[in-house]
């Protein structure tokens, strides 16, 4: 496990007509070991760009990403995407096995790990089934199991529930928190849904639009397990949305 420090991170793309478009501007963020951090911001504000830089698919234009006490190349990162991104030609079990294989887990240890995580997401009966025969929510569960199975130091999640109906999303959030409480991973969860952020996070970092920067961070001191009916959740959520609206309104 690792604490992530993001310092003065900036990123810009060059546009075809030679201008450069700033996507991220001076982003500073620390995710403590074992913390569930949410990053909230409007769609298209550069949140995914940030994740891609943390995972190393993209190099920052400026600033640094550090993993406390670890070489960034050796940090084991689990990534859960907006879509399940499964290998549809492999069974549910093989999809998890694939990630373990890539991570170099010895063959004789893999089946037990696969079984354990399938059980954790309630899919042990579907191990031999192909993903396209599953519902969207179940496919998401496979993606979650795959990310947890590799025992990541850091778990990055990019709006993983935004394509699901609210009922399914609620169930999966509950399940995700159960898993997280068992394994206490360091999580950075990206969302544009303020209620989701407040329900899940130990802390919510709020981002503005392009160029994105974090303009406020807020600890959520509510006890777990949390309940959506808790008026506190709703109140904090409303405050954050108001802040965001005022701030984005300023920009226009």
């Amino acid at each position, binding site marked *: 496990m690792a604490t992530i420090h993001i310092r003065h991170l900036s990123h810009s793309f060059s546009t075809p007509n030679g201008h450069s478009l700033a996507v991220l501007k001076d982003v500073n963020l620390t995710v403590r070991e074992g913390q569930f951090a949410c990053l909230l911001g409007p769609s298209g504000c550069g949140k995914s760009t940030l994740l891609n830089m943390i*995972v190393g*698919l993209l190099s920052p234009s400026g600033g640094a990403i550090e993993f406390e006490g670890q070489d960034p190349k050796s940090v084991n*990162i689990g*990534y859960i*995407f907006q*879509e399940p*991104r499964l*290998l*549809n*030609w*492999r069974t549910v079990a093989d999809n998890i096995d*694939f*990630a373990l294989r*890539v*991570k170099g887990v010895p063959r004789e240890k893999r089946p037990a790990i696969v079984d354990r995580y399938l059980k*954790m*997401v*309630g*899919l042990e009966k*579907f191990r031999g*089934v*192909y*993903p*396209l*025969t*599953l*519902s*969207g*929510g*179940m496919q998401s*569960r496979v993606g979650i199991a795959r990310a947890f199975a*590799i025992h990541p130091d850091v778990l990055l999640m990019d709006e993983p529930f935004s394509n*699901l*109906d609210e*009922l*399914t999303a609620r*169930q999966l959030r*509950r*399940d995700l928190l*159960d*898993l997280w409480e068992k394994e206490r991973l360091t999580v950075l969860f990206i969302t544009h849904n303020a209620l989701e952020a407040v329900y899940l996070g130990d802390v919510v970092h709020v981002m503005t639009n392009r160029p994105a920067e974090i303009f406020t961070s807020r600890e959520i001191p509510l006890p777990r397990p949390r309940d959506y009916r808790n008026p506190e959740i709703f109140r904090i959520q409303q405050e954050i949305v108001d802040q965001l609206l005022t701030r984005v309104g300023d920009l226009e």
Partner: protein
Amino acid sequence: MKPTLPEAIPASVPDRTRSGRFRNLHLYALSVMVLLGLWAAIAPFFPEFILPGPMAVARTSWEIFRSGEFFTDMYYTLMRVLGGVAGALLVGILIGVGMGINRQMETFWKMEILIGLTIPGLMWAVISVLWFGLTDFAAIFSIIIVTSPMITLNIWEGTKALDTKLVQMARTLRAPRRTIVREIVIPQLIPYLLSGTRLGLSLAWKVVVISEMVGLDKGIGHQISHWFGLFSMMKVMAWTLSFTLIMLLLEFGVIYPIERRITRWRPETKEAFAMAQA
């Protein structure tokens, strides 16, 4: 945690006992029966050298099978077809993948494919015999030229349809390039490769027979041309029938099972439709 909500119910768990190659068998049988029935009904109105009946042709076919001469010629035809289609697959993979990943190659080869698809196969059969003489290579060459546009087209489609999000997923796991090619790229191309091969084969059978008729001294086409010279309608039809039977056997006995096995992860079209409706 337990999946207690409706989403935990699978949209469909495929039932493999009912599906498979024998579904709708009765329709296949009916289709063949209708064809044979029509033939048998019409044949008596014509003399045998114009249209022999199915039973008589079947008997002659059986003799060709029993004497063993069929298998010698079939062997030559089959080898030429397999050689040609293998060559065309190589060409198709190289060009098709290139077209899928490079804009300039795409535009360049698109035109060539169009031209290739337009020129009749017969032309190539004649040209390659003129170029390479009465050799196996002449037949193989014409098959490569005739089938590679179709195969290339399929591979090109497949390469364009590659899901790069899966590649990205593998890269977040830090999968090496070798693994990404083997586990993510190739499996996605295989269905396209398969349908390309199938289309290629169906074209190759037609071209090879023409090549052999033009002058090769062995093969099914040679036999048909030989009996044509002797005005034996019975033998021409018997050879054609035998050939067709072997083709169907290959299609249903080899290609179809391979295809089913490789694409078994896809939900049946009907089920996919039901999922989309749900």
